[in-house]
Every structure is written in structure tokens, then in C-alpha cells.
């Protein structure tokens, strides 16, 4: 009996010390779950759900491409970035989001990275338009909650 318990402890310790590939798979699952929450927040236009996904100190950089010209970089505050999404929800109709197959990566520092292309189609002031955002989100735990701590997007509006 005592021997069985001893073996069990050794096995459990061994599992917990295995960083690869078990932890990578878990990280991937966690990131996939996070991305699903992000997509749902957008599609259901939930202000609170979307806000909860962004850390208070998130760093947001947008490289805005313009047809025929070099891209320009904009650094946005969390408040301004979210405000723009909310304003679009207010003014746009027939909004539809599509996402490319995401790529996940985890780092030794415990952060997770999601790379995904988000494409939005919409009707705005009677004009068909949209935007394509090639996004890299870095996720980290803040107060036990997974949140975006860094967001970079190469964006094109039409």
C-alpha cells in the first residue's frame, strides 16, 4: 500500500516536471479558448466581455497600411482602441467577422502568443466597407486571468 502511494507521487512529480510537450498542449488549449472568447465578444457585441480580455496596461500598436503609400504606426491607449470598436458597433450594420486559422506559441516567460488575421465586412453610412487586421496578441495572466498584454496589428481599411 505504502509502496503504491510512493510510486504515485513519483509519477505525479514526473508529470509536473515535464514542460514539453504537455504544457505546450495546455497552453495551446488555453489560447484557443481565449480566442474563442474574443470572437464571441465581437460577434455578440459585448462591451464587458471584450473589455475583460484586455489588461489595463496593454500596449497597442497599429500599423495602418494605405494603398499606394507606406504604413503609419499608431500607438493607442486601451480606452481609445476599445472605444473605436464600440463606436463601430454603434454606427455599422451588417457587421461580419471572419478569422484565419490561428497560430499559437508559448514562451518560457509564460506568455502565449496568438497570430490570426481578422477580416471584418460592414455597411457604414450606406457604403460597403471593412478592414483586415493581421494581429499578434501576447497573452499573460493578470490577477489569475488571461488577458492581452500586447497587441500589434497590421491593418488595412477600405
Amino acid at each position, binding site marked *: 500500500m505504502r509502496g503504491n502511494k510512493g510510486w504515485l507521487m513519483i509519477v505525479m512529480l514526473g508529470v509536473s516536471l515535464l514542460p514539453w510537450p504537455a504544457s505546450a498542449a495546455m497552453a495551446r488549449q488555453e489560447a484557443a479558448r481565449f480566442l474563442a472568447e474574443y470572437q464571441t465578444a465581437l460577434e455578440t457585441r459585448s462591451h464587458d466581455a471584450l473589455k475583460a480580455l484586455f489588461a489595463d496596461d496593454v500596449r497597442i500598436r497599429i500599423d495602418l497600411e*494605405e494603398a499606394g*503609400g507606406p504604413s*503609419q*504606426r*499608431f*500607438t*493607442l491607449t486601451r480606452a*481609445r482602441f476599445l*472605444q*473605436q470598436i*464600440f*463606436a*463601430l458597433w*454603434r*454606427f455599422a450594420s451588417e457587421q461580419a467577422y471572419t478569422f484565419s486559422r490561428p497560430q499559437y506559441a508559448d514562451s518560457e516567460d509564460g506568455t502565449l502568443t496568438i497570430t490570426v488575421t481578422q477580416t471584418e465586412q460592414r455597411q*457604414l*453610412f450606406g*457604403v460597403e*466597407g471593412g478592414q483586415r487586421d493581421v494581429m499578434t496578441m501576447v497573452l499573460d495572466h493578470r490577477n489569475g486571468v488571461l488577458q492581452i498584454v500586447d497587441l500589434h496589428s497590421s491593418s488595412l*481599411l477600405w
Partner: protein
Amino acid sequence: MCYTARICVALIAGWLGALACAAALADSPARSLCVFSVQGTQGELFGQMRDFAVAAQTQGVTLTPRALVDERIAAEDFKADQCDAALLTGIRARAFNPFAGSIDAIGGLPDYDALRTLITLLARPELAPRMRQGPYEVAGIMPLGAAYIFLNDRRINSVEKIAGKRLAVFEHDAAQLMMAQRIGAQPVLSDVSNFSGKFNNGVVDVIAAPAIAYMALELYRGVGAHGVIVDMPVAQLTFQLVIRHQRFPEGFGHWARQYFLALFDPALKVVIASENEMLFFFPPPDSDAERYQLLLQESRIALTDAGHYDRQMMQLMKRVRCAHAPENAECSDARE
């Protein structure tokens, strides 16, 4: 018996009090307040001035607000003695008090915290003499919101590209005309009542406006799906109460400035809510932000040198800016 007597005494005291109050109101001078309000008697602003009129009774003043949708007429009526007080934008009020009227200077204050500090300072008794200019006194200042640049085309993504574009400038603000010429824009003379129509109908490409105009004047139509609003305040716009101080009791101006100071936060709440409604509201590109701040500073200095802004107010605003951000380069120079 004793109880009945007490009631009688209370009734008599109350009656005497009411009589005294009625007598005071009868003695209090009837004064008129011309209120520039785009929405006329509707909307929050005119409601606030009605409340102010009620509060003014505690100072022995019976104030009757009158709404005017044309600011030029409000200012002219005030100047022609048709009203004893007027609520005008700071740009228009500059004609009555260049010191307080220069708060709305280009690049004067970067944010609302700095504006709150300045308005608090201006409500102090030590600065009261500066609030008077001849027969006029600025007896209250409240935020109207920062002025932002609205463009109908996102491809105009630098100051250089504004050159040659049609820019609405207020005909009563020579500073705007000079600024337009400075950046090479084609100025189109306008006023508060027609600049939004010109923008929404494509007569002009660029305007400067506060966020509260966005929904009220439907500026989102002018910005459309391809325009942009630059999230960088080019000026802090204000409403200013100007009075003919000799028509009001001594100390009324100070009391009113304190009253208006208490309106700062409720007014700011409306401004912030309006800013949160604006679509395509982006900061300037990272590579240009510092350059644009410098452009605003250079323009402000040039406009002060040309006599459009009050030099003492420019110095006071610099002190406020440097108290909030002492690391700014300008805090170690003596240009303003």
C-alpha cells in the same frame, strides 16, 4: 396654550421671513442673460443657465436667460446693451476680455486636467482683477471640450497634405485664419451656424470642432467611412459668462466663478461621453506626434506675437502645462 403660542410665533416668523424674501426679490435688479445655445432653449446648456438664474437669486439678482442660436447676434446684443450678461464661446468672448478669452488658444492646454487647474486658478480672488476689462467681467468659465481636426479623407495623413485643402475658419477668429495660412490650407470663412453644413456637404475638407458637435451637428456624415478625426487637442474650447459688472452686486463675479467651477465636472462628463461616440478617432501617427505639438507651439507663439492672444495668459498656461508635465522641453526655455 403654550403649544398654540409657539405655533403662532412660528407662523408670524415665517410670514415675516416670506415678506422679507419677497421684498428682497422685488428690490433685486432684473437682469438679462443672452445665452448662445445651438439647441435654443432645448438641451443641457440652456437648462444649466436656468439653474444658474435660480441660484443667482441668492445673490439678490433676478436673471432672465434668453437663448440665441446665432452666437454673433448674442455677442452683438450684449455689446449693444440688449443684455446685461452673455454666455459665449471663449473665442467670441476674447473681444470682451483678451486674458480669459485666450484660454482657447491653439495648443494652449493639452488635456482636461490642465484645464481644470487653470479654471480653478482663475476662480481665485487674487486673479479677479484680471477677469475685468473695462465694463466687462468674465464671471464664469466651463469646458466645451477640446477642438479636434476632422478630415473627410484619411489619405490626408500629415499636416503637409492639408496644404491646398479647404479648411473652415471662423471669421471672428483671426487666429484660425493665420493658422490656415501657416499650414498652406485654403481658408473658407464660416461661423458656428454653417461650418458643419459645409463639412457634411463637402464644401470644406477640414474643420476643427469639439466632440459635442459630432452628434448634434451630425459631423459623422462629413467624416463618413473614409475620414478621420485626429485625437490631439488643438485647443481647449470653453463657454464663458461675460457680465457688465456694474449691473451686478459687488462680489457677484466671484460668486459666479465659483458656481461655474462646480459645473466643470458635470460639463466634462458630457464632453467625454461625446468623445466616446466618435468613430475613426485616432491619435496622430507616432512619427508625427511630437512634430505636431511643436507646430502648435510655434503657431501659438506667432499668434501671441501678432497680438491675437494675451501674453500673460500664455505665460499662465505655460506654468500650468509645466506643473503637469515638467519634463516638457518648453519648461526649460523662456519663449513664452
